[in-house]
């Protein structure tokens, strides 16, 4: 494999265990993922599925307990100091809560100029001001001079989120990990934020790891990319977005898609819903054996599903699914 062909981000059997109340909690368990430069990958799942932890491991903010995180083919935790710093700047994270991600003690200019000055991207405050203005324009905060000297508490949620994005752009990242970046802003603001991110993706060629619980948002943001569905720390289905949305295979993905209410009364009231066997998500402290979805799964087969963890198996069309039953049906079809 040549250096050029190496995926920009690669997770190789990555796991992360947290200690909680003297118990081991597997937040992320054996996740592998390769993201090519310029690609959009959505990590989708419900709370506690490990998508945020995965995102933070990609951004180098959390050390994996097992497996390797690679950037351009290199294990990030085996990098030298300078190399790691280069990687660190190349991968930026946008947080969910616009009210927590900006330091209340600094102005917009202060927040954005700090990385510019620290990394010598600009030589002085005069240049920094110019650069900050440019970046604010990039995120549609115009005229920028209205915002430079404002404190975060003087901005609206949407504006704060734009500043977070602009701050990430100060170091010209190649990859942006957007962790539920639009889920806390109002509906009327959400679309313009999504569109703005989409434009960055096109214009700057930024690779996006887009983390969301909302499959509809994932569909719209990553129609040309891929969706990876996670459940209780494991990746259970991954494939091209249209495939996942229109032809989901894993029973969990199908349950999710069928459960989503739609903003159209005719569609949403006639949608076929997949019944689960149990309403409740098992605790991460006490994971079910075998396939962790088995206690809720409508396809559950005793003696199979609770026995072993299903591997991610290739289903064709670039889709991979971790389900014993689906894999068996598929094999039958092929035969």
């Amino acid at each position, binding site marked *: 494999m040549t250096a050029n062909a190496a995926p920009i981000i690669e997770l190789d059997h990555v796991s992360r265990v947290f200690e909680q109340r003297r118990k081991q909690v597997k937040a992320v368990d054996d996740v592998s993922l390769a993201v090519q430069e310029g690609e959009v990958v959505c990590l989708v799942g419900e709370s506690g599925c490990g998508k945020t932890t995965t995102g*933070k491991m990609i*951004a*180098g*903010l959390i050390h994996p307990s097992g497996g390797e995180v690679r950037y351009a083919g290199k294990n990030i935790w085996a990098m030298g100091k300078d190399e790691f*710093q280069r990687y*660190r*700047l190349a*991968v*930026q*994270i946008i*947080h*969910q*809560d616009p009210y*927590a*991600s*900006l*330091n*209340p*003690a*600094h102005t917009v200019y202060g927040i954005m100029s*700090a*990385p510019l000055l*620290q*990394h010598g991207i600009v030589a002085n405050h005069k240049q920094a001001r110019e650069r900050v203005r440019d970046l604010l324009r990039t995120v549609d905060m115009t005229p920028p001079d209205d915002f430079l000297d404002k*404190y975060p*508490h*003087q901005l609206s949620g949407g504006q704060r989120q734009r500043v*977070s994005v602009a*701050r*990430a752009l*100060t*170091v010209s990242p190649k990859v942006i990990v957007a962790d539920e970046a639009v889920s806390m802003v109002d509906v009327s603001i959400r679309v313009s934020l999504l569109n703005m991110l989409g434009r960055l993706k096109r214009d700057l060629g930024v690779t996006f790891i887009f983390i969301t619980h909302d499959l509809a948002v994932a569909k719209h943001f990553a129609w040309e990319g891929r969706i990876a569905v996670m459940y209780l720390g494991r990746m259970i289905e991954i494939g091209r977005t249209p495939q996942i949305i229109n032809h989901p295979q894993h029973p969990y993905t199908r349950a999710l898609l069928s459960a989503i209410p739609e903003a159209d009364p005719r569609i949403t009231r006639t949608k076929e819903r997949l019944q689960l066997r149990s309403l409740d998500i098992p605790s991460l402290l006490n994971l079910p054996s075998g396939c962790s979805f088995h206690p809720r799964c409508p396809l559950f087969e005793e003696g199979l599903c609770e026995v072993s963890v299903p591997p991610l198996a290739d289903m064709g069309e670039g889709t991979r699914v971790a389900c014993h039953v689906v894999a068996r049906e598929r094999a039958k079809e092929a035969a």
Partner: protein
Amino acid sequence: MTFLKGIAHWVNQTLRLIARNKAGFLGFIGLLFFIFLAFVMPLFVPLDKTSRVDKIYNPPSAEHILGTDFQGRDIFSLVVHGGRDVIVIAFLTGAISTLIAVVLGSTSALLGGAVDSAIMTATDFWLAIPTFPLLAVLATQIKLNDVWLLSLILALLSWATLTRAIRSQVLSLRQRDYVEAARSLGMSNRHIIFKEILPNMMSYIAISLVFAMTAAVYAQGGLVFLGLLSFSDNNSWAVTIQLAWTRGAIFFKDSFLNIMAPVIAIALFQLSLVLFTRSLEEIFNPRLRVGV
């Protein structure tokens, strides 16, 4: 010139923030008064050291506005000269214990692991024992003159509570998204500690410092009062109280001011400190600095 203007602007703005809280403003005025009383007035009011047997427990007069003490000394001059030590020791103690707390607390929170549990075990231990009696035991070793040593020992009184509080502050602050964003942006540890975390703890630290000062005033006064802290020629409010007490000033109607003047001085100083904390919150809150 612009520099001076900047300072003037800052002072102006800070004063306005202090004035936002009435109680805090009152405390601020009180503190200004005591600083003036203890550090400026002594230049104009000489310390009265001569004992005059004919003038014991004189009531207030034009000559002695607060009357005279058991030796016939001018009480007003004792009050004027008695503040300096109290305030200096309180401030030093506050500063030392806050420094210890900030260093230990943030080390504990930032390093975690074994360091954290060691520091936390020590604070837990310290919090579990009654400190004043322990101080009483330790105080017998030193004199009121040993300002630094005394402050250091008094700092033992409040460091543990403070350390714990600072630790939990740092713990919560360092998990904020903006700190994580700073890490992701490759900012130096120095930047993260001093620019991201510290500014958001300033009001907390300042308030802690003031409360540590009140604890120090409490403790030094108490130790002197019990006669555990020996003094020679010090003129502290605490010493005046102790002398008045041991010379039986509480038993006479005429000796009222001899004991009450320093008592009230300490009480008002404490009150000013406590009230002033209300304004500190406002001074360090960036949300208020710009004046919404």
